[in-house]
Structures are given as C-alpha cells and as structure tokens.
C-alpha cells in the first residue's frame, strides 16, 4: 500500500518535472517569436523520447529494485498464465528434479542429522567411544558402546555433561496381548534427561539402577499402556512376566516420550536388569564388553570441544582397570539417530553417488526448462525487440526473464517439496520391515528442509533462466522487428544452444539409464549367482530360547529332539543347525593357524559359523576334502573345524590342511583340528569382505536355528514343525521363514538402488524426450513456410520426415556418445553392487543407447508428422 503510494507520487513528481521543463522551453521559444505549433514541436524534438527517458529515470530512482521486483513478479505471473501448457510443463519438470533431490536430502536428514525427538534437543549429544590396542574387548551392537563399569565411572566423574545410558533388548511378555516387547534398558537419569514426565506413577530412582539384577521394575510407554493394558488407571503396581521374570510396573511415560533411539520402545527398565535379556551372556558382569550407548546433556556454558576433551580423558581412565592396553577415542556429536562415525564414513561415498544421481536429474530438468524458455523467448522476440526499442534497458529485461524463471523455480520447488515427501516414503516402503519396524524417523519437512529446497529451486532457476535470458537479450533485434523469422531453423548453425541443451539432456539421461541398467543386471546376476550353497528350498526356524530362559543343555535337547522329529517327514531332504541367519547375519573373529612346527601365526580376520551335523549336505555346500560334521562331533563338542577353500588356499597354499590346527579363541583355550575343506560360499552383502571362513560344531544352542532342506512342499512341513514345538514347550515361539526371504532381505539395498536408479533413469528419459519433442516442434513451427514450399514443389514427404527427424536426432546422438563415456565412469563407482557384471557391460550400453535413440526418434516424429500433414497452402499463408 505504502509502496504503491510512493510509486504514484514518484510518477506524479516526474511528470510534473518534465512538464515544467517542456513548458519552460515552449515559453522561451514563444518569446523568441516562434508560433505556438512550432514552439511545441521544437521543444519536443529537443527533449527527445519522453517515454524512453521516463523509463531511464525509473531505473535510476531510489527503491527501483523493490518496485521493479513487484512489477516483474506481476508481469511474470501474467505471462505464465498466458501460456499455461508451457508453465505447467516447466513447473512439473522442475518439481520432479527438485523432488528427487529433496527426497534424498529428507531421508539423509531424518537418519543422521535431524535433532532427536526429546526436550531441548540442542544440548543433547551422542557420545561415541571406540577403543584400539591390545587385550580382548567385545561389543554388542556398534563398536562405540561402553561397558557397565566404564559408564558408571564416566558418569560419576564428568563435569561437562550429564551422561545417561541406553541399550535395547527384545523380550517376550506374558501380558494381556502377550508377544514381543522392545525394551530400552536405561540408567535412572535417562528419562528425566530427555524431558519425559510420568503420566502415572514414577520413573526409576538412582538406587534402583545401582546393583545388577536388584530391581525388576518397568515403566510403560503411553502406547503400550493403552494397547496392552487398556489404559487401566490401576496399572501401577501390577506384575508382568518378561522373559519369565516377574517385573513390577512403577509408572507410565507421557505420550510425547518415544525415547532417544530410532526404534520406539514399548517399555523401559533399569539397565541393571540386562542379565535377563540375554541368558548365559551376562554383558553387565563383563567389564570388557561394550553394550551401553552414551547419551549426554551438555551442561550450560560448556563447548563440545571441552566436553570431548574431558570425556576423552575420562574414557581413557575408565579403561584402566580392565583394558589397560587400549586407547580410547571419543567423539561428541549433536544428538541424532544414526550418526555413528562409522556410518558417516561408510555412508558418505554411497550418499555421494546417490546425490550425484539426483543432481543429474535436476540438471536434466534445468536443461529441459532452459530449452523451453529459449524456444518461448525466441517466439517472443518481437515483444522483446519492441520493449528494447522503447527504452527498456537490457539489464531490466534480463532481470525480468530471471524473475520469470524464479517464479517457475519457486512454484516447481514447492510442488517438488510435496512430491519429495512421497518419494522419501516410497523409498522407506521398499525397506524390509524387519530392518526398520516401529521406527520413529520423522520425514516431514522442517525449516531446514524447506530452506534447502527453496535455495535449490532458486539456484536452479538462476541456472536454467540465465542461459536463455543472456542469449535472448544479446541477439541483434532488428530482424525480429521486421517479422523476419523464416531464416530461423534448427538445421542451420543459428541456434546451437538449443541443440547443445538437447545433447546435454541426452548425455545425462544415458548416464542415468546405463547405471540403472547395470544395477538391474547386477541384481539379476546376484539372484542367479552360484553362491556355493542352497539359496532355495530351505526353511529356517528360530526360537526365543533366550527369552524363555533356556539353559544351553535344555536348548540342545530341544533342538535335537525337533531335528529327529522332523527329519523323517515327507519331503525333507536334510536337517541341520546353525547360529547365524544365512545371508543376513554373520560372525567374525580373529584367528591363528598353527604351523607344522607348532608356531602360531599372527591373528587374521575370519568369518565363522557354528553348525550342526550334516550341515554341508543340508545346505548343499560341496565338501572338497575330508568330511562333514557328524552327530558325534556335535554331542562331544569335539575340537574340530572345517575350513573353506579360500581359507585353505590363503593359509596353506597347495598343502592339504586336513589334520592341521586352527586357534579361534584365546591362546589358553586350545586349538581345533581341521577335518575338512568345503567350497567357498559367497556373502550377498554389498560390502563383500571375502574373509576366509571356519566352521565349528555348534555350541551356542541358545541361539540355534533349524535348517530344513525340502523338496518345495512346505505347508505340511511348517504345520508339523509348529505342532512338534507346541508339544515340547507350549510357551516357546517359533518363527519360520524361507531362505529365499533371507536372500531378498540381503539384496534389499541393491534392489532399492536398482529401483531408484531405474526410476531416475525413466524420469530422465521422459524429461529428455519431452525436451526434444518441444525443440523439434518449435523448429518445425518456425519452418512451416519452408516445409510448405518444399511440399508444394513436390518434395517427397518421407524424405522430409527423415530430414526433420534426422536433424532432431543429431544432437541426441552426439550427447548420447558423451553420455556413454560418462556412464562408463559412473559404472566404476557402483561396481560393488554389480556382482561381477562389467561396469562397461556392452549389452547394457548398446541396449540403453538404442532405447534412447528410439524414444528420441518417436519424440521427434510426432511434431514432424503433424507439420507434414498440414496443407502446404495453409503453411504458406501463415506467414
């Protein structure tokens, strides 16, 4: 309002000032004796173009920028409204480009950057401590977890931060709805530290989290309280059985409290109750075993650097009693879900590749819109020429073009932000639920995401807007005024910029498509790969023996009983045991071999597995030398081992390893004798570590799983197994899955990558084809007259069609060639996911190149045909 007023006053003043000038001049001329008509004519002539100078004065005035911006915005809006098809196409193209970009950023942001859903997240810090050096040390979960005494020491000594402990466990609950509960094991201060308040009852006291095993108490989450206990007001004081141990409910947390970890817990319990979560595996009593994640509230006035300095010293001191030879490295990071240093390091290259891919799509959309703007601008050359000739500065015009681009950019960005939400959720939908079930990742955009998207959109619009704008205002405008645009054509060297943009789109599309093709081929290869073992027709049955407080001996008896019961069933080809979930989990350790002279070697990394009798037969792993494990090996706990061929070759060369010794445990725990060599099996993980593998007879029966090879008829088998389990122990839960499910799970990252790459590639193809369509359509519309003449003179329409399409395809072919070269480089970046498919796989490259040409040809043929179908007379009259 105020601006409008200011503007009006400015115009009035300017008019008055110029009128005064002219009037004074006229008066002077009249005084010199000229007639009124002559005086007025003379004065005007001397003054020059009033409108031109007014325009210049407007540019020179203060506040010109703000007023012009408002005017440009209105103008841009109107001009977009006038060409809705162009506007929609451009906005959608930018929206797609922004959506994939913002979608990826949303995902990464939610995983590693977004502040935790706790009170005052600004001063919450994740503290990661890793250790290096001699002496034995184990961790459960990430390598950054600390042991119970280490945590107690660091918490009591720290002056810079309040430290709290959190760990996760899955428990079986004998409560109303029963089933599995996810528990967070916490120190007494964790819930208050994250701002939780009891909705009922209370949380834990310091005394209750002091002594291991002393306080079987429970705090329910709001959701659990409602789902399992119907929101009963008298729930406090009730007792429930968790892993067969009675726990007393002392409180319910408020509805906003969902814990500091990515998975929402159902209940909280004192971390000192850890022992009941893992039978026979008392992490809490082992000072050299890290299982506690450190969460910290930084104290006021303390910097992260000071906190890190203090905690480094404290961490080192905490190791002294039990790990004196190890060095602690402490990292302090802003509180977020998955920002472990390891994830940040390993994930960075993957993210870089993904970011490169989505940036290419955005670039493609840019080139596309730039081309449309250019075509549209060329169509508006008369308007531009007129505006320049009445005195609009080229700088003003340039600004106006950019304003129009910015409007497209911001509208596209807004739409893109909406689409990105869908894209991020779609990617999550592809992740197997077992990986992320019950997560609390927040994918909704906060101000950072919105700001990022806006910045990207504006930067993008500068990019796609300035190229055509510079080109348009640079041109010599005289021919445009004379309506002489028949010598404009795509064929000549007149508009190489349009062709260059088409070529760039073709190149980018090919890079995306080729890499998508490679990933799909890699996925396919992985599915068919000979992994050296069965990948189908095996059932995997797991039990909650740990949670049912089974002893090792009882677990062994149960598993043997089930095996003997199921083995004779119809369709069973073999039954064995394992402790690792095939293709999903793996075990690793550092082993030595014992030389023929009795000298142990240095320790080296191996993969390990504990398996039952006839494991290799059941899993169809070829035994190359020696023998499979027998029932006798398993029953006696015989100190024997089977190694894979990779192990044999790496450690013994051509010498037969059977009869030699391998040392897996501590040096005082004795050695195992190698009794067989089997075929090397492949892991399906993206990061294949190619470790040599050692199998030993199963000892950890608590974690034992049954492997049942069958002939494909599983229904009867599954119900027989369930019945058998129910007979033996009705409390026991059995979960049965197929090995095919495990393969799919292991391949999920590659499947997601291949699907995402294919989606990006197709999006690129659509953008590039619509861009080419636009350019060819524009070119033929400019050449209707020429085409009309040619047709009128009797030119063969087929030849003409070939000519137009050929000219349209030339930049596509050129860009495609460049794209193939770039794609070869891209293929090398994703080699890990290709499972042996060559990064320059000729089939993929040829097929993709041809597909692009075919798609481009059809995009070019449509407008060409339309042009040729026109009556030549109409075309000629059109000019």
């Amino acid at each position, binding site marked *: 309002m105020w601006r409008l007023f200011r503007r009006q006053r400015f115009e009035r*003043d*300017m008019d*008055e*000032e*110029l009128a*005064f*000038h002219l*009037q*004074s*001049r006229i*008066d002077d001329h009249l005084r010199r004796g000229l007639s009124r008509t002559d005086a007025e004519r003379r004065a005007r*002539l*001397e*003054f*020059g*173009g*009033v409108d*031109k*100078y007014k325009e*210049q*004065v407007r*540019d*020179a*005035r*203060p506040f010109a920028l703000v007023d012009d911006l408002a005017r440009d915005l209105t103008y841009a809006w109107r001009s977009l409204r006038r060409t809705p098809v162009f506007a929609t196409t451009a906005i959608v193209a930018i929206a797609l480009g922004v959506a994939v970009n913002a979608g990826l950023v949303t995902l990464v942001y939610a995983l590693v950057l977004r502040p935790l859903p706790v009170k005052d997240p600004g001063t919450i810090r994740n503290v990661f401590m890793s250790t290096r050096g001699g002496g034995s040390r184990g961790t459960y979960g990430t390598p950054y977890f600390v042991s119970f005494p280490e945590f107690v020491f660091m918490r009591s000594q720290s002056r810079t931060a309040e430290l709290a402990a959190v760990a996760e466990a899955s428990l079986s609950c004998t409560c109303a709805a029963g089933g599995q509960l996810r528990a967070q094991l916490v120190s007494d201060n964790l819930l208050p530290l994250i701002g939780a308040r009891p909705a009922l009852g209370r949380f834990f006291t310091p005394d209750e989290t002091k002594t291991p095993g002393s306080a079987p108490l429970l705090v329910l989450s709001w959701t659990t309280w409602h789902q399992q206990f119907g929101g009963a007001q008298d729930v406090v004081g009730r007792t429930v059985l968790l892993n067969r141990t009675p726990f007393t409910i002392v409180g319910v947390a408020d509805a906003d409290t969902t814990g500091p970890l990515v998975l929402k817990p159902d209940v909280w319990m004192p971390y000192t109750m850890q022992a009941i979560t893992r039978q026979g595996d008392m992490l809490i009593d082992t000072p050299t075993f890290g299982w506690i994640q450190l969460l910290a509230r930084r104290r006021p006035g303390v910097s992260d650097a000071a906190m890190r300095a203090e905690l480094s010293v404290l961490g080192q001191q905490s190791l002294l009693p039990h790990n004196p030879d190890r060095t602690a490295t402490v990292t302090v990071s802003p509180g977020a879900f998955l920002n472990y240093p390891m994830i940040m390091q390993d994930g960075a290259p993957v993210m870089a590749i993904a970011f490169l891919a989505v940036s290419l799509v955005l670039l493609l959309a840019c080139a596309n819109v730039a081309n449309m703007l250019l075509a549209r601008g060329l169509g508006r050359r008369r308007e531009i020429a007129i505006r320049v000739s009445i005195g609009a500065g080229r700088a003003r015009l340039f600004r106006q073009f950019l304003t129009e681009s910015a409007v497209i950019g911001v509208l596209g960005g807004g739409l893109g932000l909406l689409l990105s939400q869908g894209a991020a959720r779609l990617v999550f939908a592809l992740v197997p639920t077992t990986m992320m079930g019950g997560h609390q990742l927040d994918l909704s955009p906060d101000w950072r995401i919105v700001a990022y998207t806006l910045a990207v959109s504006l930067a993008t619009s500068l990019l796609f807007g300035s190229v055509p704008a510079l080109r348009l205002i640079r041109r010599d405008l005289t021919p445009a005024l004379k309506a002489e645009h028949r010598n404009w054509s795509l064929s000549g060297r007149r508009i190489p910029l349009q062709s260059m943009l088409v070529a760039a789109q073709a190149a980018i599309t090919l890079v995306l498509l080729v890499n998508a093709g490679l990933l799909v081929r890699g996925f396919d290869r992985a599915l068919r790969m000979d992994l050296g073992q069965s990948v189908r027709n095996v059932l995997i049955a797991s039990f909650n023996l740990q949670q049912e407080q089974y002893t090792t001996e009882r677990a062994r008896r149960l598993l043997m009983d089930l095996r003997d019961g199921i083995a004779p069933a119809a369709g069973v080809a073999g039954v064995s045991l394992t402790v690792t979930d095939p293709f999903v989990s793996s075990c690793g350790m550092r082993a030595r071999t014992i030389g023929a002279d009795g000298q142990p070697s240095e320790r080296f990394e191996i993969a390990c597995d504990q398996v039952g009798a006839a494991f290799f037969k059941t899993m169809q792993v070829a035994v190359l030398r020696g023998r499979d494990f027998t029932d006798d090996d398993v029953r006696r706990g015989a100190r024997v081992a089977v190694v894979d061929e990779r192990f044999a070759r790496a450690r013994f060369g051509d010498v037969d390893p059977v009869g030699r010794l391998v040392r897996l445990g501590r040096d005082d725990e004795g050695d195992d004798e190698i009794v067989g060599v089997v075929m090397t099996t492949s892991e399906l993980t993206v990061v294949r570590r190619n470790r040599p593998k050692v199998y030993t007879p199963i000892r950890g029966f608590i974690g034992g799983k049954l492997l049942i090879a069958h002939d494909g008829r599983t229904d009867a088998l599954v119900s027989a197994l369930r019945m058998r389990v129910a007979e033996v122990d009705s409390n026991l839960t059995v979960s049965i899955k197929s090995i095919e499910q495990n393969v799919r799970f292991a391949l999920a990252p590659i499947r997601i990558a291949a699907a995402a790459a294919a989606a990006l590639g197709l999006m690129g193809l659509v953008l590039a084809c619509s861009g080419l369509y636009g350019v060819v359509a524009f070119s033929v519309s400019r050449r209707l007259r020429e085409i009309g003449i040619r047709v009128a003179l009797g030119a063969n329409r087929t030849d003409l069609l070939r000519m137009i399409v050929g000219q349209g395809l030339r930049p596509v072919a050129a860009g495609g060639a460049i794209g193939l070269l770039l794609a070869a480089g891209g293929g090398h970046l994703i080699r890990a996911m290709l499972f042996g498919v060559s990064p320059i796989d000729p089939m993929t490259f040829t097929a993709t190149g041809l597909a692009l040409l075919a798609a481009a040809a059809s995009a070019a043929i449509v407008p060409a045909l339309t042009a040729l179908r026109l009556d030549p007379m109409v075309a000629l009259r059109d000019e």
Partner: protein
Amino acid sequence: MPPTNDAAELLPGTLDLLILKAISLGPLHGYGILLRIEQITGDALAIEQGALYPALYRLQRQRLVATEWSTSENNRRAKYYRLTTAGRKRLREETEWWERLVAAMGSALRAKPEEV
C-alpha cells in the same frame, strides 16, 4: 536546440560533471541546469534534453545532489537541485582529474616532431 554536426558528442560521465558544475553556483531546477550548461559550454556540447533527467536522478540516488520543490521565477512549482557536501567533493575531484587529463592531452597533441 537540435544536435548539429559540429557539436561534440558527450563522453561518458561528462554530463554528470557538467550538472554538478552547473549547480555549484546555486540551486537550479532541471530546465535551469540545461540553460546553464548551454551557457557555460557555449552550445558546444549537444545533448538530448531528456537525457538530463536520468542523470539527475542518478546523482540524487548517489546523494551527490539534494532536491526540494520550490516556486520558479515564473511562479510555477519546480524541483530544485543543489549540491550536497559529497557532491561538492566529487566536483572538486572530477575537476582536478579533467584538468590533468586536458593538460596531458593538450601537450601530447601540441607536440612537434622534434619533441617526440
């Protein structure tokens, strides 16, 4: 007056300097500035009169001149321009620069063959 062939084209920046010089002797309205410039240059410099105004607004934005509405000699409302302190300083600097340039050019162009 219409441009004639023997009127010199304006060098970039000269118009600004001429305006500053014109109002250094006292506030003037736009038309007055034009008359003063014609007078002090002896009609040797020809400009389209309209070109004066973008220059005036530019100088105003640079705060080298200040404006106020007042009544003209023939009793009409007119916008008067006067130098600001910054404008006076700019005029001094530009004048010195021009004098040096003119002296240098003059002696260069007057140079006789034996002096080269």
